[in-house]
């Protein structure tokens, strides 16, 4: 990075934080600190909701997934617009009318304190762990670029966000979200445009898509129904619907965002805006990854994108094996490049037979390269057992640093940073508000301490917890975006099931719901442990199990009590 990049990076982050703090200046009541005084218009709510979901992980992992796995990941978001509609009809009016601070407050009105505490506890565990992963994501950028120690970098990132979240509260978070979305949109459009611009002179956007299509990277829709397949139309529509409904309806980091809406209308419109924009946004991010893939057909791509591990490998006892695999990679890359050029010639000449032949050659070379990559990844793991075999998260970052102009590098790194800060700050805020409203107020109902001060201390406590989790995240060894979604799916289905019973089955009480939730959570964990299905289905299984078991327990216990009464 040049000094220009450093100025842009530091300046963007500093301006963003200062702007948020400026907007939240003055004395804050608990209402202001937790829900921004319920004063925000719909576009503000919508952008804040989008910024909370789009963390640094989105901009690190998604282009990497587009590069390696194609665009099928977009199907994951198909359930989101449907979830936004259901939330607007049911959840939003109820939360607004009851004037709750957290989603879990409602559960005590409907059931009892036990169900409220269980649900709030599951949320705190899940969100605390996910936020740890969200801190780790931008930290790997700094550690890769500057060679900093990853543990110290995690600490710095978590601490920096903590200072700003503690001081400004929800108002500061919401205002920084607005600026964040603007910067992110501009930066990604420039990155996509420059990627196409850097392709050979005779290759336009349509030609790039043709190459991507022939290499299987435009795999946008998969209509086969397979519970083991991670991303297809059905898992996206059904599993994704349940996941997004749980995330936006029961995760306080999102509920806290749309409860800042001035009225029911403002909150609803914000959610519908998210429903309209999320799928196209995710499509464009993945498309940038696919364009990077096409770019590397004409430029030498690294055999493994995590340079630190490559350097370790070259200096270790397996250097000979690595050299051999690297040579194989170079030969196959040249073959693939020839196939791409042949494909381009054939399509220009409208020669269908030659196009099909070149397409097959490209597919074959791509598959062989994927095998070589797997062999290198195995070598990396053998050389350093603590290393991450997955280099997806490094693809976009490596491309930015190696090929994009100075100035834009600083802006894109700033984009990754502020995205991360936005979602981490929202998570800290939600963890603190849930702790204060659903735990502290219940345990010490007559406390005379200022609740804003208690919230600030609670935010600090959660910050420390999340940083500790981040220190262990580099041992996960899979795509960060998938890790966060798997973590969410382990808990969201059950939490959603509790809310579904609360909203739609009035005859079921607290005792039946509590035990149904405990059993359902255990079943979801067993499914995960035994690898019985793709993770998106955990949301469906968890939710349906809670509803069905709670209904069964209610019937069983009402029969028992009627037998007792009659005897």
């Amino acid at each position: 990075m040049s000094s220009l990049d450093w100025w842009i990076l530091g300046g963007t982050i500093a301006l963003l934080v200062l702007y948020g703090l400026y907007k939240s200046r003055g004395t804050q009541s608990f209402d202001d600190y937790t829900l921004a005084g319920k004063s925000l218009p719909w576009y503000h709510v919508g952008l804040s909701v989008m910024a909370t979901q789009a963390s640094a992980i989105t901009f690190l992992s998604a282009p990497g997934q587009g590069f390696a796995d194609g665009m099928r990941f977009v199907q994951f978001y198909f359930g989101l617009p449907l979830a936004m509609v259901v939330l607007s009809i049911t959840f939003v009016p109820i939360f607004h009318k009851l004037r709750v601070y957290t989603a879990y407050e409602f559960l005590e009105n409907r059931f009892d304190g036990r169900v409220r505490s269980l649900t709030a506890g599951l949320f705190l565990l899940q969100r605390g762990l996910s936020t740890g992963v969200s801190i780790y994501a931008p930290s790997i950028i700094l550690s890769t670029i500057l060679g900093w120690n990853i543990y110290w970098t995690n600490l710095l990132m978590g601490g920096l966000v903590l200072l700003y979240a503690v001081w400004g509260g929800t108002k500061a978070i919401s205002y920084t979200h607005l600026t964040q979305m603007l910067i992110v949109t501009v930066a990604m459009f420039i990155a996509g445009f420059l990627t196409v611009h850097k392709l050979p002179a005779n290759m336009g956007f349509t030609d790039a898509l043709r190459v991507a299509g022939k290499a299987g990277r435009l795999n946008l829709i998969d209509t086969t129904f397979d519970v083991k397949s991670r991303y297809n139309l059905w898992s996206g529509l059904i599993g994704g619907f349940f996941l997004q409904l749980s995330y936006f309806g029961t995760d306080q980091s999102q509920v806290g965002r749309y409860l800042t809406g001035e009225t029911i209308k403002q909150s609803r419109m914000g959610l519908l805006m998210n429903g309209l924009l999320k799928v196209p946004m995710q499509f464009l991010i993945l498309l940038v990854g696919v364009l990077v893939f096409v770019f590397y057909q004409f430029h030498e791509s690294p055999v493994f994108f995590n340079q630190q591990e490559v350097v370790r490998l070259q200096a270790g006892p397996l250097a000979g094996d690595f050299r051999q695999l690297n040579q194989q990679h170079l030969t196959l890359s040249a073959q693939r490049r020839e196939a791409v050029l042949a494909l381009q010639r054939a399509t220009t000449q409208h020669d269908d037979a030659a196009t099909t032949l070149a397409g097959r050659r490209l597919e074959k070379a791509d598959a062989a390269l994927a095998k070589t990559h797997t062999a290198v990844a195995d070598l990396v793991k053998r050389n350093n057992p603590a290393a991450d075999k997955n280099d997806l998260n490094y693809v976009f970052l490596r491309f930015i640093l190696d090929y994009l102009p100075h100035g834009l590098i600083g802006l894109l790194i700033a984009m990754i940073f502020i995205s991360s800060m936005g979602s981490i700050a929202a998570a800290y805020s939600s963890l603190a508000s849930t702790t204060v409203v659903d735990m502290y107020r219940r345990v010490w109902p007559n406390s005379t301490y200022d609740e804003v001060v208690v919230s600030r201390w609670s935010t600090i406590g959660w910050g420390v917890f999340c940083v500790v989790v981040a220190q262990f995240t580099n041992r996960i060894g899979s795509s960060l975006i998938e890790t966060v979604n798997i973590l969410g799916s382990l808990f969201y289905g059950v939490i959603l099931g509790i809310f579904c019973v609360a909203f739609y089955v009035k005859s079921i009480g607290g005792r039946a719901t509590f035990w149904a939730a405990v059993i359902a959570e255990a079943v979801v964990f067993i499914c995960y442990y035994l690898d019985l299905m793709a993770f998106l289905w955990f949301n469906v299984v968890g939710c349906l199990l809670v509803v069905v078991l709670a209904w069964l327990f209610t019937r069983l216990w009402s029969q028992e009590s009627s037998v007792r009464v009659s005897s």
Partner: protein
Amino acid sequence: MIPMNPPTETPLFGSWPLAYAVVIGALAVEIALFYGLMRWFA
């Protein structure tokens, strides 16, 4: 007589059912476009 503005709790699209239909319709159009894009460049 100038007609009164609709109540403030209606969305930009005129009515809530229409707003919901726009969101779901946009998803259907996107899925169809993605499918077309995939087949076209396959």
